[in-house]
């Protein structure tokens, strides 16, 4: 391993490759900030550039830099504008945006930068140690377990909506799942629920829905209640995090680096599930007093998804590099780029082309460091976005949401859908319905159904639920997660009324 490390270091530290990392991180950060352009599209755009370089190590290093940069850039727009352009950073806006509104935008960005750095670096360390062993674990997971894992994720999200809100969160999750069934599914060559409209043939666009659920209602709220805009006066107070705060987020970062990494290793799970699950787990294990802070600007609630999504990005390289199986859309595009460069990832990559394998790992360390060094000094300037006058800021937010929806699909109907869903989401917000579960349900819906269908086909029915103990165990956890909050609330109520409950 030491020899490999040295080869990697030698390759990654050449002047050309260093420039690639820095350039990749910068391009990724700036394009990633535009809502609507996620890592997948940015990497796809950069592929012709990477392939024309001809050197697989340099190309992969550039693309990995772009990937990290894009994830960090996406967090920036989540935190500052509540406009997550990437599914993996949706969870960062839950606490990041409230922090920005309280005038702590600088601190939120600092925490995001540090958490991303730690998540990415610890992830890369784990990748180095566990890459070979982990690939065999990932193979044990069948579609039945993926299905159950996603059900657990969705129930955890509904459960953390809080007491008296579980039914609403459940309904929103189900609505998201229902919306995901619109259009042509992967397994069935048949359009469903399109009401005969050609534009719905390929389903609703993720970006359109994300913009409609988060950015548009937020902008409308700023219009309706102008004095709120004043709270984000652009003054960057307390950029630094205090010693106590660092102490409180350190365990979160530690836990989420590991958890996020292992979730990222599972093909199909990736940064999105890792960030939501990380948020849910940290909220559930936090002390009662801190639990109430979540969603209102808790630093733990920001550090958890930020760490987890970066660690998961690193984790998703494991199946790609060791098995040649891409675990996510982004790594699938990377796989395409590698094959075009005449490198075939797989178990033999480490033996045949050790310089590629190790150079990628080393460039992860360098990329994370570059991101931290580049972004920390830039934070005050990035946060200046908030000091733009309301009369100009709001039209621009609306314009970027429209552009985000338009660029992805190149279809003007998408813009009308965006406005329609935006109005619907605003009304839902008036009535205190949580919107995040809807979007999460929508994102996971396709994968959930595919895995469900595959298990049904393999086992010729629903018998996979009891024939696979791991699936059954996960589903039991999901049921407990949904029932627990109402049970707890009922018990607390009984206790308050003075009725003894036996223990």
């Amino acid at each position, binding site marked *: 391993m030491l020899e490999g490390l040295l080869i990697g270091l030698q390759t990654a530290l050449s002047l050309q490759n260093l420039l690639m990392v820095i350039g990749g991180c910068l391009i990724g950060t700036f*394009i990633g900030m535009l809502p609507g352009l996620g890592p997948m599209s940015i990497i796809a*755009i950069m592929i012709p550039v990477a392939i024309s370089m001809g050197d697989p190590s340099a190309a992969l290093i550039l693309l990995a830099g772009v990937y990290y940069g894009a994830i960090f850039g996406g967090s920036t727009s989540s935190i500052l504008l509540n406009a997550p352009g990437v599914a993996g950073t949706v969870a960062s806006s839950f606490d990041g945006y409230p922090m920005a509104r309280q005038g702590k935008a600088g601190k939120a960005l600092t925490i995001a930068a540090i958490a991303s750095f730690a998540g990415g670096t610890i992830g890369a360390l784990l990748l180095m140690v566990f890459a070979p062993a982990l690939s065999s674990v990932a193979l044990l997971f069948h579609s039945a377990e993926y299905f159950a894992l996603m059900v657990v994720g969705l129930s955890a999200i509904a459960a953390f909506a809080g007491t*008296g*809100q*579980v*039914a*609403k969160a*459940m*309904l929103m999750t*189900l*609505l998201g*799942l*229902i919306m995901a*069934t619109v259009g042509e*599914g992967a*397994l*069935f060559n*048949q359009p*469903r*629920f399109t009401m005969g409209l050609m534009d719905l043939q390929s389903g609703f666009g993720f970006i359109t829905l994300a913009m409609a659920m988060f950015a548009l209602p937020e902008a*409308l*709220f700023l*219009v*309706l*209640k*102008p004095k*709120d805009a004043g709270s984000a006066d652009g003054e960057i107070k307390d950029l630094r995090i205090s010693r106590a705060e660092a102490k409180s987020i350190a365990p979160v970062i530690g836990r989420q680096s590991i958890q996020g990494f292992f979730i990222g290793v599972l093909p199909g799970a990736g940064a999105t599930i890792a960030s939501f699950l990380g948020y849910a787990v940290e909220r559930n294990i936090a002390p009662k007093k801190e639990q109430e802070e979540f969603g209102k600007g808790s630093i733990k609630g920001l550090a958890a998804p930020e760490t987890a999504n970066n660690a998961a990005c690193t984790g998703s390289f494991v199946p790609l590099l060791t098995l040649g199986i891409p675990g996510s859309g982004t790594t699938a595009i990377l796989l395409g780029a590698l094959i075009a460069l005449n490198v075939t990832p797989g178990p033999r990559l480490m033996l045949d082309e050790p310089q590629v394998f190790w150079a990628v790992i080393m460039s992860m360390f360098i990329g994370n460091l570059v991101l931290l060094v580049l972004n920390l000094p830039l934070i005050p300037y990035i946060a200046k976005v908030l000091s733009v006058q309301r*009369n*100009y800021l*709001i*039209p*621009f937010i*609306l*314009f970027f949401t*429209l*552009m985000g929806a*338009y*660029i992805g699909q*190149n279809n*003007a109907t998408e*813009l*009308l859908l*965006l*406005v329609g869903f*935006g109005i619907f989401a605003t*009304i*839902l*917000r*008036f*009535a*205190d*319905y949580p919107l995040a579960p809807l979007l999460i349900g929508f994102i996971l819906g396709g994968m959930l159904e595919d895995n*469900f*269908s595959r298990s*049904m*086909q393999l*086992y*010729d*029915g629903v018998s996979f639920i009891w024939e696979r103990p791991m699936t059954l165990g996960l589903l039991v956890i999901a049921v407990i997660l949904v029932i627990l909050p*109402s049970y707890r609330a009922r018990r607390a109520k009984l206790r308050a009324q003075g009725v003894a409950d036996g223990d």
Partner: protein
Amino acid sequence: MALDRWIALVLLGICLIYGYTAWFTMDDALAPFMRRNPIWPSTFPKVLSVLAIIASLVILLGIEKGEQKIGDIDYRRLGDYKIGQALMLLGLMVAYALLLRPAGFLFSTVGFLVGGSFILGERRWIMMFLVSGLATGIVWYLVQVVLGIFLRPLPGFLVGG
């Protein structure tokens, strides 16, 4: 009845229509050989419709009691807020969606940004046009030239298509 229960009622209606389609009409079009499959295109929607109907009934009937919270905005007093501005901005967005193709990116975007600022009360025309024009140009350059995604800059009749 509070707004959240009205919404639950509307969603219940949507779920009933969705469920009706999944349970009764969708399978008619299924090819005979697919009927032997353990999973049909309607299987997952059937499960979803039942669960969603239960969830909306729980809210509608008030089985799960939560404390009434008033969020950032109290919808009962919408008139107190700048609802006119919000509606006009939404109208502007619809107009933008409809005009983007026919009027071209540059004109419609400058129009949208200037119109948006105007609705919000900005009256410094030179500043408005300067900022909007500059931003539109930069975004168009980035998207079209750097990223290579086609955006027609001018109205069709000016560029011959």
